[in-house]
């Protein structure tokens, strides 16, 4: 890919704006709450777009195009099954408790509902997960810059991390959120022309259907067995693993995304944030997955495009989107497309780093190291944590090198951490009898069960580290990740319930505003139907069902 001066100028303009936003926001960042929680004053349209954009990182933009080429339209399950229902559930059922409890973070909700040890376990595992994800983002961008611009892996990592560090250090969460919104427009508008031109060239959806095997173009039709579809998962693994455990575990309990709703101005806006975000989210597969399908068809039709290959002769799916950019885009819009990819990385990484900041400062440092310091001290800790978080991300980026598909890796990590956590939250919010000891041992057991399941099963050479002979071999790492999530959730659920019966539950008064049934649910509902959470959710679920039906 050959860039000219105009391409570099476009990349430069992007960096100027990103850093400019950081400098501008810095003037208004006076307290730790401003830095770590945006002063809880961000308008709805910004929180809704940031909610999507925090999950529109390099893993999603590059990884979903890769999965689109590898697994076909089944990848859309990460949206229509694995995101929208959970986002709506968050807005309708869980956000009233997150926001109403005035917790500053998801782990802080756990200390209010359960106890300190449960919060600390979650805070530490979440912190580890965010820097891990941040490192994966960094790795993806470094590979991209290495391939496209010929930069060395090390220089790419240091330069990219430096820019993210600058604007998150200056303006904290507000800077990250404002940049996420800017990045959202850039990513969508930078990649959309590829989809438009690509679909035109391959003959639209009919052309894709005509040139690919049937399992690649059906979302649900080929899931009777693991062997009948390219993703290597069956219906119950998909429905339970992704559709229930992983998606609800991620969208309803991962502080990285929940934080975007928690910084809204009021309860109504907080509840509507994930619901409004669901509408653009349901159309994102056309931007991030279709390029993978288009690339595959182009290569089959002999239209001058070849799928990128690794040195060992296998297809390098992660380079599908960059290769498509190089194929279609002339100098000028090539700079825009490349900037969109860089933006996707920055969006993902900054989101992780800012969530890491908040959890570390409030849930680990303030809770265990220094409780009653002046606010300026926590502001300084928040800024210092930004630097530390970036440095750890750089270190973890090198770990990501040994995995061949970024999404598979993330699913694995989410299975270890998020899946059991969703069981804890379900019981915590909807069952008054759940106790702190039950939640704590449930989380420990669920996470351990996830690790053991990975250790005794094998998929594409991954896992199986506990036994010489694996108990089961999966068709794909995706199927393995889904099963791990199911096992982790189930073990956490059962252990939490059993252990809860050995401890007295909290008093009803202590559970007000934290558990269903003790206080009326307040969603801040006012005004006409289009401002209310439930009617909007019903419309979103009908639209999503229609999309599933169309691509059945």
């Amino acid at each position: 890919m050959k860039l000219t001066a105009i391409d570099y100028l476009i990349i430069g303009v992007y960096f100027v704006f990103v850093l400019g936003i950081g400098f501008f926001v810095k003037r208004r960042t006076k307290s730790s709450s401003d830095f770590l929680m945006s002063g809880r004053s961000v308008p709805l349209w910004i929180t809704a777009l940031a909610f999507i954009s925090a999950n529109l990182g390099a893993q999603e933009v590059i990884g979903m195009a890769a999965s689109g080429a590898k697994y076909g339209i089944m990848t859309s399950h990460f949206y229509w099954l694995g995101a929208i229902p959970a986002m709506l559930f968050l807005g309708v059922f869980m956000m009233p408790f997150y926001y109403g409890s005035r917790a500053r973070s998801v782990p802080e909700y756990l200390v209010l509902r359960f106890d300190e040890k449960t919060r600390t376990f979650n805070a530490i595992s979440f912190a580890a997960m965010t820097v891990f994800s941040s490192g994966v983002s960094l790795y993806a961008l470094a590979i991209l810059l290495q391939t496209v611009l010929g930069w060395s892996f090390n220089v790419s990592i240091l330069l990219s991390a430096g820019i993210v560090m600058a604007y998150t250090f200056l303006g904290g969460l507000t800077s990250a959120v404002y940049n996420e919104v800017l990045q959202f427009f850039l990513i969508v508008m930078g990649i959309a022309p590829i989809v438009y031109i690509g679909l035109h060239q391959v003959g639209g959806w009919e052309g894709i259907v005509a040139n690919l095997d049937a399992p690649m173009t059906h979302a649900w039709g080929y899931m009777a067995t693991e062997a009948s579809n390219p993703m290597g998962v069956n219906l119950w693994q998909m429905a339970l693993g992704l559709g229930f455990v992983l998606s609800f575990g991620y969208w309803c309990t991962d502080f990285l995304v929940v934080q975007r709703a928690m910084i809204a101005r009021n309860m109504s806006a907080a509840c509507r944030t994930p619901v409004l975000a669901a509408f653009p989210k349901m159309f994102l597969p056309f931007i991030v997955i279709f390029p993978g399908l288009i690339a595959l068809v182009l290569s089959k039709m002999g239209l001058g495009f070849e799928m990128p290959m690794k040195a060992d002769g296998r297809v390098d799916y992660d380079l599908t989107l960059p290769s498509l950019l190089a194929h279609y885009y002339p100098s000028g819009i090539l700079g825009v497309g490349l900037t969109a990819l860089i933006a996707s990385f920055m969006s993902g990484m900054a989101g992780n780093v800012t969530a890491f900041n908040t959890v570390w400062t409030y849930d680990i440092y303030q809770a265990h190291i220094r409780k009653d310091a002046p606010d300026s001290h926590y502001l300084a800790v928040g800024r210092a944590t930004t630097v530390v978080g970036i440095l750890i991300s750089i270190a973890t980026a090198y770990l990501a090198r040994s995995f061949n598909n970024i999404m598979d890796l993330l699913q694995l990590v989410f299975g270890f951490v998020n899946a059991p956590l969703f069981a804890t939250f379900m019981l915590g919010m909807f069952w008054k009898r759940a106790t702190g000891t039950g939640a704590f041992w449930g989380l420990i057991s669920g996470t351990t069960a996830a690790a053991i399941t990975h250790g005794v099963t094998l998929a594409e050479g991954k896992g199986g580290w506990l036994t010489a002979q694996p108990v089961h071999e999966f068709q794909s790492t995706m199927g393995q990740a889904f099963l791990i999530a199911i096992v982790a959730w189930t073990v956490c659920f059962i252990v939490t319930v059993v252990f809860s019966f050995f401890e007295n539950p909290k008093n009803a008064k202590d559970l007000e505003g934290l558990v269903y049934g003790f206080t009326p649910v307040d969603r801040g509902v006012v005004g006409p139907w289009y401002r209310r959470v439930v009617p909007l959710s019903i419309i979103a679920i009908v639209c999503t069902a229609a999309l599933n039906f169309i691509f059945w």
Partner: protein
Amino acid sequence: MQRLSDLRFVIGAFLTILGLLLFVAHFTEGGGEAVQGVRLNWFGAWLFTLVGGAMIALSVFSKDPSNE
């Protein structure tokens, strides 16, 4: 000055600048080869300029800055 701090204005300005740069690319680099009858720099230039301009207009003509 207050409008300049409106996020819609900032994003609109950013997109408009990118659109103008794409116009420059179209006229200086020949616009690139047409794919399916579409010159992508020309297409992108209009897309970014129109969306960016619309966001600036929204920010200028609305009563209050959206992020204040």
